[in-house]
């Protein structure tokens, strides 16, 4: 051994080994997804037999899960419900969080630390601890089995996160720009629109995407409060679990369909989002 200090990754074989380990972990993570996709193209019998990769792919399972049956939650209805609930709650979150983040970063109000803490403190309580009062409230307000209740809850669920994220993005906006716009005669709204939003755009996109993902994947509230009507995609996915016969292949197909929108949105927004998240993380 030389007396020279050699850091991890400076030796070729160490690098190679670390690379190999990374690939292994990556494969480990991806394998269940790969298996889900593979299963979704199988016959039920094949999917439930010994695991195999030699099978003749079929789209029948996709036809099964997207086919509509009277009286049961259909694919298009569930997707429609989800899209409406997710978009509505995300729009409301942004409309509320952008001004809040402004007031906590650009010209911070007094006690802004306390306000920030309050926002995040709403996430301390386990959801399950609050579900009974929420359910009773929803029932009293006639909101059970409506899309509205999910819009409200998803807004409440994502708002603290959005405020925190947007705040860190807004802090990246040089203060002189806001001051210049103020001196140039721009109103508060004008400053927001012409100075802050263009600069914090990627951050806002990242925040919106995260809200969309969280709302899209939310299952607990959906199943507790919307057992009958206005059901969302996660419920539709579990609707393919059947007590009669095999369902692994069908469930896989449904899961693939449920994942696709998020994966596509994430793919499209990947670059911006990583930039956005990194930006927030550094500060």
């Amino acid at each position, binding site marked *: 051994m030389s007396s020279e200090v050699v850091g991890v990754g400076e030796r070729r074989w160490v690098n190679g080994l670390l690379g190999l380990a990374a690939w292994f972990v990556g494969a480990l993570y991806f394998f269940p997804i790969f298996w889900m996709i593979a299963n979704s193209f199988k016959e039920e019998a094949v999917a439930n037999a010994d695991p195999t990769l030699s099978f003749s792919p079929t789209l029948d399972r996709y036809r099964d899960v997207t086919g509509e049956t009277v009286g049961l939650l259909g694919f298009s209805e569930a997707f429609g419900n989800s899209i409406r609930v997710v978009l509505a709650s995300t729009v409301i979150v942004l409309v509320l969080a952008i001004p809040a983040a402004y007031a906590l970063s650009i010209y911070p109000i007094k006690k802004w630390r306390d306000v920030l803490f309050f926002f995040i403190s709403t996430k301390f309580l386990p959801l399950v601890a609050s579900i009974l009062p929420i359910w009773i409230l929803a029932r009293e307000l006639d909101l059970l089995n409506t899309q509205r209740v999910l819009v409200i809850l998803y807004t409440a669920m994502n708002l603290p996160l959005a405020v925190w994220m947007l705040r860190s993005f807004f802090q990246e906006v040089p203060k002189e720009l806001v001051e210049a716009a103020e*001196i140039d005669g721009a109103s508060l709204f004008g400053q927001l629109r012409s100075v802050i939003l*263009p*600069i914090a755009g990627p951050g806002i996109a990242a925040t919106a995407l995260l809200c969309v993902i969280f709302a899209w994947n939310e299952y607990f509230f959906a199943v507790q409060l919307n057992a009958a009507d206005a059901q969302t995609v996660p419920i539709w996915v579990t609707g393919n679990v059947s007590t009669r016969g095999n369902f692994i292949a069908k469930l896989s197909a449904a899961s693939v369909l449920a994942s696709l929108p998020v994966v596509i949105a994430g793919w499209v927004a990947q670059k911006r989002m990583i930039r956005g998240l990194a930006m927030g993380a550094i500060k």
Partner: protein
Amino acid sequence: MASVTYEQATRFYSGTERPAVDSLDLDIVDGELLVLVGPSGSGKSTALRMLAGLEPLDGGDIMIGDRNVSAVRPRDRDIAMVFQNYALYPQMTVAENMGFALKQQKVPKDQRREKVLEAAKILDLEPYLDRKPKNLSGGQRQRVAMGRAIVRDPAVFLMDEPLSNLDAKLRVQTRTQLAELQQRLGVTTVYVTHDQVEAMTMGHRVAVLKDGILQQCDTPGTLYHSPANRFVAGFIGSPAMNVLDVDNDGAPRLAGVEVRLADGGVEPATVEAVGFRPEAATLADGAPLRGRIRTVEDLGSEVFVHVQIATGDATSEQVDVVVKMPPPFAGQPDDTVGVQLTGELHTFDAEGTRTATTSAQFVA
């Protein structure tokens, strides 16, 4: 166009012991270019931001013309500001940047374009109107920031160290252009800088601030020749005035050598410090104030000689003076020389206030 008046204007930052700007009284006449100058932390930028409305007043008032703007929002003060980092809107083109304020005022599009073009012509920005700020050089960005201010035709221009991000050569060029432009437009301008040369060359009058307190506000010539106190004396001028503490046994003494004042109306026993400019002294072999040359700065047209005065006492503090000599200068470092006064000498009392300006001699 308008005058600007600070009346006992005060700004306190919470968590600090003394005000950032302390009871500032300042009258800036219509069309004047007033420079606020001082070291960092002197409150000059804060004073400017108070005028802009970006810092609230904790006391006193600020008037633009005869309108008290103390409680008026920045956007309603009819001012334009040039920021140190220019603060150009990155997603807008040069033309959009310059026209932004007019757009906010709902000026029709064709009028807007006309005004932007006019300003672009003045500032040589016509070829760049469709570029984004990131595709401009530092000097061009600075001119866009200027352009954004002049298209508005405001009552007052505020400039916060607008040249400090330019390289030295461009800074000197732009300084002249800026002063000319201000002269031509005749708009009252308040200009902040930490650079006393910039202050002296540009300002009709210069206000020197220290620790939030106005030290002196006067023409560059008056500041130079009749500084109000030790601070102004030392701050204005490059190289700085030689301001030296003296021993006083009824007559001021410098390294044992008496500073004999001509009848300047000041009681010699009250003199605590004396100051003289490098050009108010010369090196002469027979002079009683002796010292050793430390360095020689030959600038071609003039030579500055730094002399360490021999105090005759190894424990006391070193006293250095700078003397301006005409070229050619033959002296070398470590040569022993004598310093002789040829021009004015300022005397300062215990509080640092200038008490007299008179001729004087060093007498052994």
